[in-house]
């Protein structure tokens, strides 16, 4: 029983990472109908930028994370302007393949810059776990959950209460109408892409303090993010968050109780089943 709780706890951590990445991807998917296969590289770069900020710039962890997020968002902005903007009118397959190419490019750039050996970011938190009633939680994991909740709440506030958020929601619902009322669609796209990149970077920088960094971690994250987005319903933020958490927990439980070798298979089988039987995903409305 304790094992199950422990596993669920671990699953929630990873799940929250999935959720963050997936929310950004949902926005990009929903707004621009772009299957961004390079999305996971933002996660990867968030982690690696944080690593460099800590190791080479000698910044403290929190500043390093902030810097990493900013740097990744700048990169996301640049990529949208340079590459994706030119592909908006092309058939979906062209844009999709371009993202695959970008994914390769970014992954191997990382490998050339940081090498192929696993790296790690030293966590700033004390290793002694906190006791919250019956559960024992390592401090850094608490931090990750706290930040994730904060970021999602911030994102929610952004969407609901700011002009930008309203413009994004309007464009999400109906591009033509949004354009008619004067919303500059291109700016919305670029902004959304940048925000999406930033959220993936946060996830990377946070989880980078627990997991090892490898240049291939981006491709992995992309795959998981897609699974989450699709299972959750491709236009639904709530769906992305809930599915992300569920996937994390399902994988953790699968690894613990069934087999750690096939734990990734859980996600893949889930996605196939969900896609075949509920075409809009669990929460999706419009597809």
């Amino acid at each position: 029983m304790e094992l199950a709780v422990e596993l669920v706890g671990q699953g929630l951590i990873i799940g929250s990472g999935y959720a963050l990445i997936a929310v950004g991807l949902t926005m990009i998917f929903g707004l621009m109908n772009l299957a961004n296969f390079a999305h996971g590289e933002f996660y990867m770069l968030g982690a690696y930028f944080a690593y460099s900020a800590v190791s080479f710039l000698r910044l403290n962890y929190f500043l390093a994370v902030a810097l990493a997020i900013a740097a990744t968002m700048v990169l996301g902005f640049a990529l949208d302007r340079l590459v994706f903007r030119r592909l908006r009118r092309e058939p979906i397959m062209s844009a999709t393949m371009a993202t695959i190419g970008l994914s390769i490019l970014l992954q191997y750039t990382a490998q050339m810059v940081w090498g192929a050996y696993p790296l790690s970011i030293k966590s700033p938190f004390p290793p002694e776990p906190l006791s919250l009633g019956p559960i024992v939680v390592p401090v850094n994991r608490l931090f990750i959950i706290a930040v994730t909740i904060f970021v999602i709440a911030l994102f929610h506030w952004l969407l609901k209460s700011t002009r930008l958020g309203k413009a994004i929601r309007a464009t999400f619902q109906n591009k033509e109408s949004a354009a008619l009322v004067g919303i500059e669609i291109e700016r919305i796209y670029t902004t959304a892409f940048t925000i999406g990149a930033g959220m993936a970077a946060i996830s990377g920088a946070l989880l980078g303090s627990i997991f090892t960094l490898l240049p291939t971690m981006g491709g992995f994250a992309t795959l998981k993010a897609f699974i989450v987005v699709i299972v959750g319903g491709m236009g639904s933020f709530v769906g992305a968050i809930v599915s992300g958490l569920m996937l994390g927990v399902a994988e953790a439980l699968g690894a613990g109780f069934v087999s750690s070798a096939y734990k990734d298979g859980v996600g893949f089988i889930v996605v196939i089943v969900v896609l075949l039987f509920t075409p809009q995903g669990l929460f999706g409305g419009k597809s």
Partner: protein
Amino acid sequence: MGRAIALAAVAALLLAVPILFRDPYVLHIAIYAGINVMLVSGLNLLVGYMGLLSLGHGAFWGLGAYGSALLAVKLGISFWVGLPAGALLAALMSFLLGNLILRVRGHRFVIITIAFQEITRLVHYNWVELTNGQNGLSGVPSPVVAIPGLLEINFFAKENFYYLVLAFAALTVYVCYRLVGSHVGRALVAIRENESLAESVGVNTFRYSMIAFGTGAFFAGLAGSLYAHYSRYVSPDVFDFIHIVEMLIMILMGGRGTIAGPVVGAIIFTALPESLRFVGLSPAAQWFTLGLILVVGILYVPEGIVPRVARLLARRRGARPAAATENPA
């Protein structure tokens, strides 16, 4: 007439490769190019002609490789049986999978194909008793033809294997060419262009998707078997997503929706990474370059090399470029 001469010249050149290039390294690249031609010609039926981005093609290649290799290594079955067996295994899997997923479209289809390949990889990686896991299967024998007194060929020699691959690659291209020049090819294109309209004039989308999917899988399986008996070793690395990226680059840069495009793409992009290696680039730098080429290619030469060259030639000859059709039909 001009086309027949050009084809004859190309055929003669291809047949003469082992004579012109004695270097076994060149033959090695040529053999891989041939294997890639088989892979991407089949995949192009789906990606180029039908417009369906199937990212699980590597699974069929790997199934053909493992199927043929396992039969040879564990049961001592001859390559000449293992080859069609591997291809049929791949085709069967595509049939089963296709029935499940070919009614789904768009991004969902893409993700499912990725998931399918990943699951296949996981199974081959972890089912150690059968596949030897990550250590892979070694000792896969080279094909041999042994009719005592009449004919004895050992395909261990690169020149011989080259001709074997050349024959199957030519077969693959021929079959694709015929398919594309028939109502099947027109149906695939129609589905890509406007699926509802195609259905409304009698095109059974599911049936033709299955034909394209199965044909592609069959040739991928053939290619897999050839690959296994050439390298004499198969590991779960055949299921790596990176191979799909390679295939996409070949199709995209070569020219999707044409027959010659993937062939040209396969040759160029089999030779290119090797040349990059030759020039001293690290594997990471090679991949970086390929990724860069893919992105730049999509931005600047979206239709691919073969159609672009064809357009330039047509313009030189004075034909109106605006009226040029996309496919030979």
